[in-house]
Structures are given as structure tokens and as C-alpha cells.
């Protein structure tokens, strides 16, 4: 039987698995190839495009805006994503204590921000941290403490974005860690306690080592999503980057070069260039790939011991 005949004979099977492949081709493969083509062009998006070869890559390396955005992304990542993962791990251990009551209540309360619309979150954070009349500054004033320009100081902006990441991501990581902890055999704990181990020793010698695959999973997915930070600053500054570009991230920069926000009240300070935007996309891809490769090696070594 030839191969075509085999395909023909099993057409139903091929057809039934085709949706994934068709969608994958339509929304991933084709755009990817197109992005490769676009990276050799200079195009404002509506007029005629112009072939420029590798000039967009030269522009990426030479211009400071992408490197600034990259540095800023890592900075916000360090301020938001790393604390939230560590915090969620500690909270998960505490909430997994067998004697704890109303566990469901805590889980629900912590998970709630995750299902809240980010748009709403951004509007609330904007109001809470607004410079003159925001809740935080009003409270600081009432307590006779100096107020802080949360949304106009670049560090204030980073803190607010990091706070949004922490507030929103906490419940998600908590849930994953708690699921990991609940899978640990309770017999191990009993044996440890019989041997006279205290809570700290149990955490260090049982919980954390057994939880290692979960921690690695969370670290990897958390890193990839954290470095693609976009929605929070985009909503906070209506597509702009905020004063002193304190809220500029790699993905936000790409969005700005893609043509920006479009709302009459917020404009970007860059001239749209789809070629440059797709080069930024490729650069982000390369950075994430490098990080994933590093952590893959790290993971394998971790699981082999």
C-alpha cells in the first residue's frame, strides 16, 4: 500500500485530528513566516513597505529603546514575579497545615484577583495610586508621612506594576504549590515527626525537595509570562510608557511600534514601523528561548539527583 492510499484509507482519522493542525498553521506557522518576512521590511502599516534587509536588526542593536525596555522588564520582573513566587510558596506551606480551618475560604480569597478582569484592576490601581487624590497618598497624608508620586516617578511606576503582579498572581501560584504539597505522602511527615524533626527541618528536608518539580514548573512558566509583561503597564498608561518611560517593557515597546493605542487621549511617541516591531518580537523570542534552554538544563540536573 502506498502512502497516499494509507492517507486516503484513514481520512476520517486525519480529518478528526486536523483542527489543531489547521488552527496551528493559520495562527502560528503562517504568522511566524510572515513575521520573518516583515523583519526585513520598513512599513508604517498602511502605506507601501520597503525592503531594508537586516537594517532593522542594526537599528535594534544600536538604538537604546529596546535595551532600555529589556532592562526595565527584568527590573519589574525582579520586583514583582520573584517575590510573588517565593511569597506564594511560603503561604502554601502555611496554608497546608493540617490543623488549619476554613482553608477553602483562604484559597478562594487569594484566588479571586486571578479571575478579576485586569482592566478593572488597572483602573482601581490607577485610582488608589493617583498622585494628588489617590487613596495611598491621602492615607500617607493623614498619617503625617511624606506622599509619593506613584504614577509619575519611574520607581513609583515600577512599584505599582510590581504590586499589580503580586496582588494578581499570588493566588495562582499559591494554588499550584498547594496542589503540589497535597500530593506529598503524609507518611513521610509522620515518620519525620516520630524521628523528632521540627517544622523547619521538615520544610527543608521533605516539603521542598519533594516539591522540586512543581517549583521548577512555576519558575519556568512564571519567568516566561513575567518577561512578556504587557497588559499592566499598557492599561495603566493607556498605551504609553509613563513618565521617564518607567513602565516600558519589551512587549509594550513592540505594541507601540505596531501602531500603538489609537485612543485620542493616549498617543505613542514612536512612528509605527511593523518591520521594527517584528524584529523586537524575534529578539524577545530569542531571549525567552535562551532562558528556557538554561532552565531546561538546570531542570534536568535537578531531576536527576
Amino acid at each position, binding site marked *: 500500500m502506498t502512502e497516499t492510499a494509507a492517507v486516503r484509507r484513514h481520512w476520517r482519522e486525519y480529518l478528526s485530528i486536523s483542527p489543531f493542525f489547521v488552527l496551528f498553521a493559520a495562527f502560528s506557522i503562517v504568522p511566524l513566516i510572515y513575521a520573518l518576512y516583515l523583519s526585513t521590511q520598513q512599513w508604517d502599516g*498602511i502605506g507601501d513597505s520597503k525592503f531594508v534587509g537586516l537594517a532593522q536588526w542594526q537599528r535594534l542593536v544600536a538604538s537604546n529603546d529596546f535595551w532600555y525596555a529589556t532592562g526595565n522588564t527584568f527590573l519589574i520582573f525582579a520586583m514583582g514575579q520573584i517575590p510573588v513566587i517565593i511569597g506564594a510558596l511560603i503561604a502554601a506551606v502555611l496554608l497546608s497545615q493540617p490543623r488549619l480551618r476554613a482553608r477553602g475560604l483562604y484559597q478562594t480569597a487569594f484566588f479571586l484577583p486571578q479571575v478579576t478582569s485586569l482592566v478593572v484592576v488597572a483602573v482601581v490601581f490607577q485610582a488608589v495610586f493617583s498622585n494628588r487624590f489617590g487613596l495611598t497618598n491621602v492615607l500617607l497624608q493623614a498619617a503625617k508621612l511624606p506622599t509619593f508620586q506613584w504614577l509619575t516617578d519611574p520607581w513609583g511606576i515600577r512599584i505599582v506594576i510590581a504590586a499589580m503582579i503580586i496582588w494578581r498572581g499570588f493566588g495562582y501560584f499559591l494554588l499550584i504549590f498547594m496542589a503540589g504539597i497535597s500530593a506529598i505522602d503524609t507518611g513521610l511527615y509522620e515518620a519525620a515527626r516520630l524521628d523528632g524533626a521540627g517544622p523547619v527541618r521538615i520544610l527543608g528536608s521533605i516539603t521542598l525537595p519533594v516539591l522540586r518539580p512543581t517549583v521548577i514548573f512555576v519558575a519556568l512558566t512564571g519567568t516566561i509570562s513575567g518577561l512578556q509583561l504587557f497588559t499592566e503597564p499598557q492599561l495603566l498608561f493607556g498605551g504609553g510608557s509613563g513618565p521617564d518611560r518607567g513602565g516600558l517593557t519589551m512587549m509594550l515597546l513592540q505594541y507601540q511600534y505596531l501602531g500603538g493605542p489609537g485612543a485620542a487621549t493616549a498617543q505613542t*511617541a514612536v512612528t509605527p514601523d511593523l518591520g521594527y516591531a517584528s524584529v523586537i518580537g524575534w529578539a524577545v523570542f530569542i531571549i525567552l528561548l535562551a532562558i528556557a534552554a538554561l532552565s531546561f538544563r538546570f531542570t534536568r540536573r535537578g531531576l536527576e539527583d
Partner: protein
Amino acid sequence: MSKIRTAAAMGAAAALIAALAGCSSGGSDSKTVTIWYRPNSLPAASIKGVQKQFPDVTIKLVKTPDVDTKLTSALRANSGVPDIAVANTQPLRSAQSKIVDVSKYGFASVKSDYLDWKVKAAQGDDGAQIGIPIDIGPEGFFYRVDKFKAAGLPTDPADVGKLVSTFDGYEQVAQTTKDKLGAFVCDSPDSSVYVPKTFGQGYFYYSSDGKLDPGSAVNKQGFIDATTFGQKGLCLNAQPYQSDWSAGASQGKLVGFVGPAYEATLLSSSAQNSSGQWRVTTAPGGSSSQIGSNLSVFKTNADPKVTTKIAIWLTNATNQASGYQTDRLFPSTPASYSMAAMKEPESYFGGQVTAQVFAGIAKDAPTVTTGPASITTQTVFNNAMIDAVKNKTNPSDAFAKALSAAPTAQ
């Protein structure tokens, strides 16, 4: 069994095809005219009456909040482009080949109905008319009578207008309200000082011969003066449409500002508690106006004559006059200014007929030369100004830095 499997496979395939088909969109024929508009960007009378006026065609009005983005996407994909859209005209210039030059299809004969500078601002390369004027944003000085009285300042619009007619006078008023009331008559230096200083000279980052010119003396002076003004602590430092702006207006911290006519909507919705206390008068530095939107007609329709005719009707003087009270769209058609709809006193402004104040400003406003990079350049300088005011950077240094980040050649 096999039949069920076949049916299931067929069903899945059909669903898939349907899902993918959703990605494309149909074209339009000459009997259907699709109009995209931002909410409140067309007068209610135009929207209501257009179908009745043109019974031979089917008119589809699509309210599109982010019309500029959608339009760019449609033009990029070359599919789903509407026949008429209300949009920022200048950024569309690189797609000029897809836009109808309406002067060839009947606009030339009605051109004189619209403000001359506004008509010019809607032109593309080689003088092609790629936009039909709709609203403009004449700049006025909004202020609160009760607060001005408390600060010992005059309250009559004519007197206040005279007082703030120069930027020195404006600065004195700003100092007075700040000292006596702890309140501001400037929202942010870019909108209250920089805009009147530059637009008042007909400058929007292009020289009068149409060349991008961010380094011009007008820009430098305007930027430095506005930044200095802001660094003296005379502004609330809040941008219109931000929550700090609205909070400042409602809590009596913002008691005056320079802004275009359409910001009256923002004001009355932010500060309902001070209704009746606000007035409008002429802004510092003479008359100036923000450009506002235009209607563009696209080459999607087989009959551009009809679509142009519809676009002209939508923006005629009668329709535009009706748009002032309801949607705060200030007409670009001078004939509207003497119509009854624009002579009604407004209770929010203590019975003042604001339309007449703005009408005078609109007629005197200079021609503003604009181009594709105007808005982007403005954003660069506005951001630089906000940063410079906050960081107390030397204004000349801040200008030089912004200039190096500004778009070049377009």
C-alpha cells in the same frame, strides 16, 4: 458506527471552516454605504437623518470606539475598509492612494462653507482633499467664578479674558489663585501653555511650507516657556481624561484651565458639584484651535460621488450646529455660528452662551500646518515636558533631548 464517525468528522470540519471563515470579511457594493464613527464624533442629527436623506442607498452606521486603530488594521489588510470614516486624517496620508480626493466629486463647490484653515489641514500630498471637516477644538480659558471672587479677581468673562490675554497676565492670575486659595488655573503646562503658545502661531511641528520642523524657534520658545511655567509650581500637573484631573476639578483644586471646546463635556461630568460656577473666555496668547477630526471617503465604493455627497451632508452647517449642544462638537462651518442651536444659554456655565465665545476664537484662529508626524512629535515633546517639570531639568536641556528623540523626515 462508521456513519456516526463520518458525521462527527464532517461536523468538526464544518465547525472549523466556520471558525476560520470568521477571519475574513465581505466587501461592499455601491448600494450599501458603511460609516465608521467614534461615539460622539458625529452630531446626533446627522446619524438620525442620514438614511432618510439618502433613501436609495442602505446606510450602515457602525459605532467604533477605537476607529483609528480599526481603520489602520483594515487598510493594512486591505479588507473590510468602510466607505466613510471619522478619523485623524494626517496619519492616513501614507494610504492616500486608497482615499478619495473629494474635491473631484463635489466638495470643491461647498468648500467655502468650511473654515479655510480646517479645509487645508485635511489635505494630503499635492493638495488632494482627503478629509471633509467636521469638528474643531477652539481653545478657551475655563474658570470658576466663585473661586475667582474669593481670590479677589474679576469674574466677568470679558474682564478675565483681558486679564489673561497675555501669558504674563495669566501667570499673575495663576500665582494669585495659588497663594490665596491653594488652587490652580493650569491643569498641566503642556495643555494650558504649550498648546496655545504653538497653535496660536499656526504651528503643529511643520513649517508653513509643509516640512517637518520640530527644531523651530516657535517650538523651542513654547516648550521652554511652558516648562518654566510648570516648574514654578503653577499647575495641578494632571492631564485631561486622567483621574487626577477629574478629582482636582470636583474637589475645587482645579479652578481654571486652557482647553479645547470639547473638554466642556469632561468638565461637566467631572465637576457636577460646581455647576453654574464655570465660565469660558478667550485664552492667553490670542486665538488658537485644535484641529479636530475629519470624515474620509475611501475608494471602496463604486460610486464615490454618492459617498462624497453623504459625507458632505453629514457635516453641513445645520447638522454641525445641532452637534454643539448635544455632543460638544464645535462646528467647522461658520454659518452654524449664527443658528439658533448655538445661541442657547447653558446652565452649567451660569447661563453663558459659550458657543459664541468659541465662535469668535474659531474665526480668528490661524491656519495650522500639520502633517503625518504631528501627533507623534507632540507626544514626544509633551512627555519630555512632563518629565522636565517633575525632575526640574533645565528647560533648554530638556528641549534638546526631546528634539533628538523626535521623528525626523516624513
